[in-house]
């Protein structure tokens, strides 16, 4: 339909804009009056936190790039120059480096919240899959960012991870040479990683936009996992959730500030303060903490191709999760068995993290293998079967009338017979 938008904005200037480009109406509709389930807990703040974190990464990163030199002979010194000579350069760099860790903490909580409350189920499959794309892009971006300071872990991490692609039959070798821009990790590698590290965040912004659009079509899931039945079940996003999210953002910033100001190197590896040296291999090459579970999966089988396949499979399995989970009930609150296995998955992921942090010997080998086995068993076997054999608890009639949980019911409503699934 062509024609001016009918705006109900009072201010004449804003109205003039809004009739031609209805962005104000759009914001009003999507962020102010947007009907949002009224029963969110604080886990629903993590999507917004991730958005805030992305903005912090972009802002600090753009300023860091103004003082950084992507050259093997100068990168390390240019980072130290940022730390010493650039005004508040230390703040920018520590915020960016710890911001990456915060981003993964926030996003992992966001993902596990989705797993617990079944946020990936119909009609939110595409919303979930876009989220998995964002996770993949974040991983690629974080990996390439870690290479830029050109310390020992930068160099050797880059060597190990890029070499993984050589396991792919036939095209593996050419892909690795393409990534390197030569026949080893060297200056062309650093240059292209810098370029891609600057590019990918904007791709993430694009996919985040699609993620949010998809969210605003289906609406948010909620801790009960049932759709709002009417206006009594929802609240306008503003001011209720803008204010509630503000509380979460403040707490998030406290954690972030503690890391940046008092423990800025606690999550990094000391070897990355040693300039890269292709002739000296560190004793243990370990990736950043947020990659450790995947690193453990990579090393779980004594086959390079097998390990690489499992590692990428660990992410790919998330794409098809909406169809692997056959239970019609979303929230784990009403799934007595899934609720237990969910925690098994959490424990498996944490155990994999420990296995990834330690050298692959002794007790860490079986722990890595059992963790890997459970991870895939959970998604590929357990979830399809649980939907068939699990007896879910009765679902509440609506968000505002939870028959379970003992909330105060309006007079006359209590006598209603509960519906079962």
């Amino acid at each position, binding site marked *: 339909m062509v024609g001016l938008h009918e705006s109900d904005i009072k201010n004449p200037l804003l109205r003039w804009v809004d009739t031609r480009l209805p962005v104000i109406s759009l914001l009003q509709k999507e962020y102010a009056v947007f009907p949002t389930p009224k029963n969110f807990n604080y886990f629903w703040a993590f999507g917004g936190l991730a958005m805030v974190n992305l903005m912090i990464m972009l802002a600090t990163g753009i300023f860091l790039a103004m003082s950084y030199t992507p050259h093997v002979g100068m990168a390390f010194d240019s980072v130290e120059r940022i730390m010493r000579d650039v005004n508040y350069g230390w703040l920018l760099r520590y915020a960016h480096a710890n911001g990456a860790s915060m981003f993964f903490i926030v996003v992992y909580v966001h993902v596990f919240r989705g797993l617990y409350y079944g946020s990936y189920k119909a009609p939110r499959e595409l919303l979930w899959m876009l989220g998995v794309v964002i996770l993949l892009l974040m991983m690629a971006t974080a990996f390439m960012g870690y290479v830029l300071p050109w310390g020992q872990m930068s160099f050797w991490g880059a060597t190990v991870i890029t070499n993984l692609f050589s396991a792919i039959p036939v095209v593996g070798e050419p892909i690795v040479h393409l990534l390197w821009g030569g026949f080893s990790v060297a200056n062309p590698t650093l240059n292209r990683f810098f370029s891609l590290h600057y590019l990918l965040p904007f791709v993430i912004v694009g996919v985040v936009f699609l993620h949010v659009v998809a969210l605003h079509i289906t609406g948010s899931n909620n801790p009960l996992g049932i759709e709002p039945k009417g206006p009594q079940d929802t609240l306008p996003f503003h001011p209720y959730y803008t204010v509630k999210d503000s509380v979460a953002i403040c707490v998030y910033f406290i954690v972030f500030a503690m890391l940046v100001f008092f423990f800025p190197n606690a999550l990094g590896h000391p070897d990355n303060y040693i300039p890269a040296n292709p002739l000296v291999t560190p004793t243990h090459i370990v990736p950043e903490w947020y990659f450790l579970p995947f690193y453990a999966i990579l090393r779980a089988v004594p086959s390079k191709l097998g390990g690489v396949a499992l590692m990428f499979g660990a992410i790919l399995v998330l794409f098809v999760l909406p169809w692997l989970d056959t239970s019609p009930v979303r929230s784990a609150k009403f799934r007595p068995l899934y609720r237990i296995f969910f925690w098994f998955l*959490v424990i498996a992921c944490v155990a994999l993290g420990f296995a990834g942090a330690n050298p692959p010997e002794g007790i860490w080998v079986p722990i890595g293998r059992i963790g890997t086995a459970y991870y895939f068993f959970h998604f590929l076997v357990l979830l399809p079967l649980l939907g068939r054999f699990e007896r879910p608890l009765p679902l509440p009639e609506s968000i505002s009338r939870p028959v379970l949980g003992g909330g105060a019911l309006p007079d006359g409503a209590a006598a209603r017979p509960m519906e079962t699934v």
Partner: protein
Amino acid sequence: MRTLRPALIAALLGAAMLATPARAAEAEAALPSLNWSFSGLFGTIDRAAAQRGFQIYDSVCSNCHSLKQAYYRDLAGIGLNEEQIKAIAASKTVPDIDEAGQPTERPALASDHFRAPFANDRAARAANNGGLPPDLSVITKAREGGANYIYGILTGYDDPPAGFHLMEGMHYNKYFPGNQIAMIPPLQDGTVTYTDGTINSLNQEARDVVTFLTFIANPELEQRHRMGVRVVLFLLFLTGLSYAVKRKLWADVEH
């Protein structure tokens, strides 16, 4: 259970994070753990210790180890004044190019980087029996254990235990990975004579030079801690405020 869940998740995440800097358990002794002036949320650089530490770096360490990221002007951060810094810089020479385009040496300025003992890595190796003395600019950040580790190395020289095979030109050190270090024991009791009358024991010397090196690795440390305390206090206030607003706003909502 309802309230336990977030706590459980936080604990799991915390455990995962703690596990990250996994230190390989090897044959080395457990590091000493000192009470440093710069540790903790309110930590500051002990200026007197850092100045004594500079004296040690200047007279001992700098014969082999560079400090190439640091400038002479950085010494203002350990309490030296402009005149003192100029005098220290002027007593060193740094390489330069003269009017005729020929390599030359000139007295250093406060704005110059610390003079490196060797022209390049190869010269450093040639003078040190093949070993390369590492640059010390960020040394306390570049080793697992940080300040305690550097202190341990400086004080950890000992006679090798019976049956330990020590290679030619190497020295036994309790804390060094593999226990064989190329560096000769750099400090003993009385290696330097302090101008402020502090007793020049090995432990005191090691403590002082580690304080200096920690400052060089983190010249922003005091500013960072001061700013951090203010930021966190402000955020705590803001959290309380926003939580109060949230409570008031949600008071009428049944949820």
